[in-house]
């Protein structure tokens, strides 16, 4: 029975990673058309990406918006997490739910809503406004990860700093913030990719400006451009490296503070 389950499990994993497996060979095809298996290998579609200014421009816009949205959501989300974890005020759980809501509510509803207000405020086709909209999508990750990490933090360390004469802000900056930095980094990476992969809101409010997902989307409507798999492979590498670094840092931090962490209640 267990062996049968194991076979089933790995078949299922095969299905889950099927699209990932085919991506690399497809991107290396030398042909004009998408074919599998490729008859000859080349990097021409990787070159095509860098030679096409619309692809490069889309990548640059994606990075600009992504970095801006990450910075903003990290700043705003970390401050809010401190209040949510340490403060005691009415409506706390409702507020937490609202911060996390963009993760589960249908994006298209938010996209339409933002499009309508952006038109009214004349913010369509405005990179700064797009960055703010992406920060909304990135914020849930920051609030969830940073407040979870803050909740695990042993406050006696900070209290010790206070007893030894540090003011509340100094104690926080010198004791708690260094503890938070790795989880903020992990949250920042998730926030960045939330923005970097965002399609629907951008499609509604960017007014023709193309981020990478929008560029890919516009391409897919017309034909199967072989540049897309090459872009996809590069993006996947980027996210694997990014999330890998985030995971390593998070784990190291956990080990470092393990002795100081109180046992889970």
């Amino acid at each position, binding site marked *: 029975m267990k062996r049968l389950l194991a076979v089933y499990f790995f078949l299922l994993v095969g299905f889950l990673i099927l699209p990932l497996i*085919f991506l690399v060979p497809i991107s290396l095809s030398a042909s004009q058309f998408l074919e599998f298996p490729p008859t000859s290998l080349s990097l021409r579609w990787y070159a095509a990406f860098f030679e096409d200014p619309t692809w490069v421009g889309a990548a640059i816009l994606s990075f600009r918006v992504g970095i801006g949205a990450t910075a903003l959501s990290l700043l*705003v989300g970390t401050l809010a997490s401190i209040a949510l974890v340490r403060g005691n005020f009415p409506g706390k759980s409702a507020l937490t739910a609202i911060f996390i809501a963009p993760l589960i509510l249908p994006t*298209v509803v938010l996209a339409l809503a933002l499009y309508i207000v952006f038109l009214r405020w004349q913010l369509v086709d405005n990179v700064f406004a797009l960055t*703010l909209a992406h920060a909304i999508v990135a914020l849930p990750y920051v609030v969830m990860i940073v407040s979870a990490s803050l909740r695990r933090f042993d406050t006696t360390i900070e209290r010790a700093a206070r007893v030894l004469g540090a003011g509340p802000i100094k104690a926080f900056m010198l004791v708690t913030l260094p503890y938070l930095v790795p989880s903020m980094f992990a949250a920042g990476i998730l926030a960045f990719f939330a923005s970097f992969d965002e*399609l629907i809101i951008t499609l509604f409010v960017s007014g023709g400006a193309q981020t990478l997902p929008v560029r890919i989307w516009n391409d897919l409507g017309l034909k199967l451009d072989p540049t897309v798999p090459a872009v*996809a492979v590069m993006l996947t590498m980027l996210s694997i490296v990014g999330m890998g670094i985030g995971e390593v840092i998070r784990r190291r931090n956990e080990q470092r503070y393990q002795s100081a962490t109180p046992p889970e209640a």
Partner: protein
Amino acid sequence: MTMRRPIILLLLAPAVLLVGLLFVAPLFGVMSLTVHDGTSFTAEPIRELLDSRVALVVLERTFMLAASVTAICLLLGYPAAYFMSSLRPRVRAYLTYLILLPFWVSILIRTYTWIVILGREGIVNTGLGALGLAPVQILYTNVAVHIGMVQILLPIVIITCLASMLDIDKDLMKAARSLGASPAQSFWKVFFPLSVSGAATGGLICFILSLGFFVTPALLGGRRSIIIANLIDLQVHQTLNWGFAAVLATALLAITLACLGVFWLLMRRRVEFSGAGLGR
């Protein structure tokens, strides 16, 4: 550590400002468009929704798609989660990484790859041709939409089911066995009932996320696979009928919130239930 009220307000202010201005207010704006056309109150958009055959067909299709995708994910995911729950923690951690691997690739790109795999001259049909079989039309049908959506949502269902299964005290099944139950009985009478609420949670999350899908139905489905998110997009970008788009969006939002309400009730019951004993 207690914080004073002004400090709490100061810390929350930027996030509340951002979310209030660009999330809460716009959503209320959309909802208000369904009863107010900018100058006066009107019931026109709602009447339009109820009169529109297209909207009702698409709403029903959205519901049916979400339901069937959820059912498939639960049927496929539950045994996988059960298998994972029976392993040693270390092995389980590695398999969890494996299950979560698809998250590293964006949904848009995964959908693109399905087009290459399932298309007329795609990998599946080339393979069938090599075996001397006739090509099958999978791409641009509901089957392709299901494949694409299950591939995206299955990991979420597996992980949620697994989390609740790990909470189950394994000694309960041993006790059942020692009291004379067969392995099948100890599974169906002890393990399964205890795992149902976790599976239901996973199913509900899957259902809610399915309702809002946009990319997969648009790219893998045909003209008759569009669901509500695609219809909203069409209303905005092609028909330019915003009132109608707003009423569709409000309907989608209301359905999602209703599901979240059920979810919340379920979670609360689960907390009470697991707090009621069972060795804790």
